[in-house]
């Protein structure tokens, strides 16, 4: 089970890394081609924009798994070990609740958009709901990770990068 969990987290991060790598290559290619008079591809600019939410939502569960999200540890510094573990569970429960609600409403936003037949009409033409697809996936993975933290606050992932 924990192996599958780790695999899912790594897979999501892999998608994020590939996305960042791809936009780097595409933007470089676009600017060089344009300055060499080979014309430019307007869809690259647009694709770069769409890549950011995809990468962000795919990397978020991995960052949570690795304990890398920015957080204040004001209380952690003064609390006992036991109180700290309890507080970690409270934070994990809150994270789980937030992620579950956003996952659910991510699905609602996606279905709303699909039903309305909304289309993105710029250089690239595609159904608008594609943009919302990473939301339920990213937050579903965050639900899994927050759930794992709720059950076992000590994280093997943080200990062994």
């Amino acid at each position, binding site marked *: 089970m924990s192996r599958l969990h780790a695999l899912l987290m790594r897979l999501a*991060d892999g998608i994020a890394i590939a996305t960042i790598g791809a936009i780097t290559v595409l933007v470089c290619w676009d600017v060089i081609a344009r300055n060499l008079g080979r014309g430019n591809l307007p869809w690259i600019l647009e694709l770069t*924009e769409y890549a*950011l939410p995809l990468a962000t939502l795919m990397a978020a569960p991995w*960052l949570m798994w690795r304990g890398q999200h920015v957080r204040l540890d004001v209380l952690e510094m003064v609390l006992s070990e036991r109180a700290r573990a309890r507080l970690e569970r409270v934070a994990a429960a809150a994270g789980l609740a937030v992620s579950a609600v956003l996952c659910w409403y991510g699905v609602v936003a996606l279905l709303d958009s699909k039903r309305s037949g909304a289309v993105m009409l710029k250089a690239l033409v595609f159904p608008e709901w594609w943009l919302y697809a990473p939301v339920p996936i990213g937050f579903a993975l965050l639900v899994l990770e927050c759930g794992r933290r709720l059950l076992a606050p000590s994280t093997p992932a943080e200990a062994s990068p």
Partner: protein
Amino acid sequence: MSWWQALLLLFGALTVLMMVGLPVAFAFLAINLAGALIWFGGEAGLVQVVRNSVASVTNFSLTPIPFFILMGEVLFHTGLAMKTIDSFDRAIRGVPGRLAVVTIVAGTVFSAISGSTVATTALLGSLLLPQMLKRGYHPRMAMGPIMAIGGVDMLIPPSALTVLLGSLAGISISGLLIAGVVPGIAMALMFLAYIVVQAVRHPQLAPAFDSEEVHGWARWGPLLVNVTPLVLIFALVIVAMSAGWATPTESAALGALATVIVCVLYRSLTWKALLDALAGTTAIACLILFIIVGATTFSQILSFSGATNGMVALVQGAALPGWAVLGGMIVILLILGCFVDQVSMMLITLPFFMPLVQHFAWDPLWYGVIYLICMQLGLLTPPFGMLLFTMRSVAPKSIPTQEIYAAVMPYVTMGLGAIVVVLAWPGIATWLPGVLLKR
């Protein structure tokens, strides 16, 4: 609910959630959900939160962030950054406090190629701190310059946080990136002068030591070979942006590509190094972007609840002189900087500050540079400055945390001095963008 009740509720709940250790982005998201139910019309508001979250980072002005971070990560993972520092170490000889001077000079050049303050501090800390301590440098003399120059990284382009400030505050990103150059270099020079004076007045803080004698090519060659390409990459990014060949995003991507090409030419690029650099970039960039996913809707809720307008109207109605309002903003930023991260700082304060900047008709670039220096100080001020934690992670356990705090204080004081200087002489911030961008 009146605007001030809304303001208290929103910030009160945000503070509590952050204090219990919920990641900053999740604290914002939790408040958004509650705020959407109250001010965005119930369930429809929750769907709107999802739409806003996607829209907040679907933004071309944010795309330089990963590219600027990638530049530093590539140099770090390929080992080229270490060669750069070693080159300065060979070239800079016979100066009081030599290794601390090497730290500042190498840090300034590395800042001009790295978009991440933490990466710069970690690199300098892991390489130069052990050397300085071994040579009998006082821990304060060894650690202070490393943290201080790491903070200056934020001012000297490329800088991921400058891009974010420009994007969130609606200030020209290329203008703001270029505006940071002169104040950044001036601060580095100020640190250099301080170190040399301290080393002359108190030689025991930085004892001179016999090092291998190097002359001619052995001394200057590595500097020419290893540092020139980095300076050229910096020039490429700045020139591409200011000459209008490329947008800030494209300049950043070109900078990243040029860094990769340089590493290939130096035969230091491996697939593993490239993948590690990409993974590191994704982690740092997405960390920042995920906070934006949470906090953009927070700004909208502040606005919908009437809190933003109420607060701004209160300040405007008080008919305070501009300098008092600006002074108040700086104090708020400095206090916030002690406790919260830079991205949250921007997202919490900009909705209130930017309407006031327009009201007083301040030059946005001048204001942006002052804001950047305040954020830079936030990286250094105890107890939660990010670079203090970075230093803690690379410093030997035997050095108490209080010593790290003490080491950084002279540089924080100089940073405050820099704010006063930029306030008094706005040209320090606005001259270079004026020349290069023909503003």
